[in-house]
């Protein structure tokens, strides 16, 4: 039952019986996860703490290695961090001594020599996230929501087409989070990236995604895949529709049956 939809047409990220244990095998963080994620799709991983969702994200990012099974991105095995995959964290993790634009340019600086094109691209991305006027502000001069926008622009500056997001707006207040989620949908739609989004909020997971992977803890595993056929672009009002609520109930049932 851990196998996700096998009719995926153009898989970008694939996992084959991926398992990860910590502490010498005593803690099973993730067990037997198999999945295929379609190019350009938005996938949410939802579940309570300890269900292995962050572990799965770090495995795809190449930050940690699986104990068993294998992972592929664009058909090649993941063994280390790679340039076609980029990750965004719960906190903005901006460098305080760099201006917003310099923070956006960091991934390029790490990869190679920065060109005029890179600088223009970085400025465009800051404008895309609505912070064109704050390019030369330092993180301490920006609000929490604005800091996460800079982090989003930095994520896009990597040029990666697989974006991993670990509760990126989880530390923000409800209103800011909702607004940023809408913008996130617009932006990833515009750049056409494949997005894997971790959250513990069921409604948020469904609202954003084409497909929701419901995960359960001890041991962490993929318990259910929910297709979300809601039309795009989505607006907050969709959350009151009967269809949306049916999907929420569906996920809640899986999570409640622990």
């Amino acid at each position: 039952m851990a196998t996700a939809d096998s009719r995926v047409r153009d898989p970008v990220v694939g996992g084959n019986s991926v398992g990860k244990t910590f502490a010498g095998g005593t803690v099973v963080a993730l067990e037997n996860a198999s999945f295929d994620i379609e190019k350009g799709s938005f996938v949410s991983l939802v579940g309570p703490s300890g269900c292995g969702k962050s572990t799965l994200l770090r495995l795809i990012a190449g930050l940690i290695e699986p104990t068993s099974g294998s992972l592929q991105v664009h058909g090649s095995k993941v063994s280390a961090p790679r340039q076609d995959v980029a990750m965004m964290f719960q906190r903005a993790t901006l460098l305080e001594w760099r201006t917003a634009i310099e923070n956006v340019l960091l991934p390029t600086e790490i990869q190679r020599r920065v060109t005029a094109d890179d600088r223009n691209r970085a400025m465009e991305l800051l404008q895309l996230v609505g912070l064109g006027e704050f390019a030369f502000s330092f993180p301490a001069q920006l609000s929490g929501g604005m800091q996460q926008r800079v982090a989003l622009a930095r994520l896009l500056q990597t040029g990666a087409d697989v974006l991993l997001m670990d509760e990126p707006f989880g530390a923000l207040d409800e209103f800011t989070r909702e607004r940023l989620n809408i913008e996130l949908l617009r932006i990833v739609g515009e750049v056409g990236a494949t997005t894997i989004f971790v959250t513990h909020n069921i409604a948020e997971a469904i609202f954003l995604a084409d497909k929701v992977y419901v995960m359960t803890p001890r041991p962490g595993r993929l318990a259910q895949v929910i297709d979300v056929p809601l039309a795009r672009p989505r607006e907050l009002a969709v959350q009151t529709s009967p269809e949306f609520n049916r999907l929420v109930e569906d996920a809640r049932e899986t999570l409640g049956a622990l």
Partner: protein
Amino acid sequence: MPAPAMHGEGRNGVPLRTRRILMHAGIFLTLVLAWEIGARAGYLDPLFYPRPTAIVDSFIRIYITQGNIWRHLYVSLGLVFAGFAAGSILGIVLGSLVGFNALARRFVKPYVLVLEATPRIAVAPLLIAALGFGAQSKIAIIMLVCFFAPFINTLAGVVNVNEEKLELFNSLGASKFQILTKLVLPEAVPVIMAGERLALTASLSGVLVAEFIQRDQGIGSLILIYTRNLNMASAFACIFTLTVVGFLIFKGMEMLDRYIAFWNNETGMARVGAARKARWEN
């Protein structure tokens, strides 16, 4: 002191800030006056507690009429800056090397702990024995007293790198060198600067110890000579000079800290932000 009160108005329309300054000046003058009267009336032994007016006379003499303090001040401050520069650069370099290298850390740590527990001044006579009399051994003593704060602080700054930022750099495929230069060292700057402040203050004590042991020149030897000749007023004038020097050094380091770790204050961010904007547009 809450900021609004600074600009508030006290009774009779006199600003609070002015009132405070007047109050402090009043207390200070009263103390000095009591000292003067006590010394003149014979309650204070003038041999050890010279009259404030005598100290003022000494100030005028050593700075203007005789003008002999300048040379000593110049020599002492030269030693302070030489020893401070050498000691703190050594501290920062070794601190970052040891901090960034887990193996070196394990081997160096016990020695650091032992040396830290030992009062550095105790080693001063040995340094003089080893290096001989002269500027060399004095600078070595100052280096010794101002090495540890930058070393320990740099080490701590480098070791306590933010885990999330480190993960970000790893996910971007950064090399060890890039992590060191783009993350670890810049992030350690404020804590390194705090170490530098301690070091500069310590180096002022270091130069005095060095000059107490080798009484050839410098403020330390001058204090020693005046005290031996029972010229306490001049000794006090030297000590107050050191108070002013210490205060200026402290303020100077504070300004330097705000300048270098600019991202910790509004004015710094405004200054650097504008400069980077100008550079970007060119």
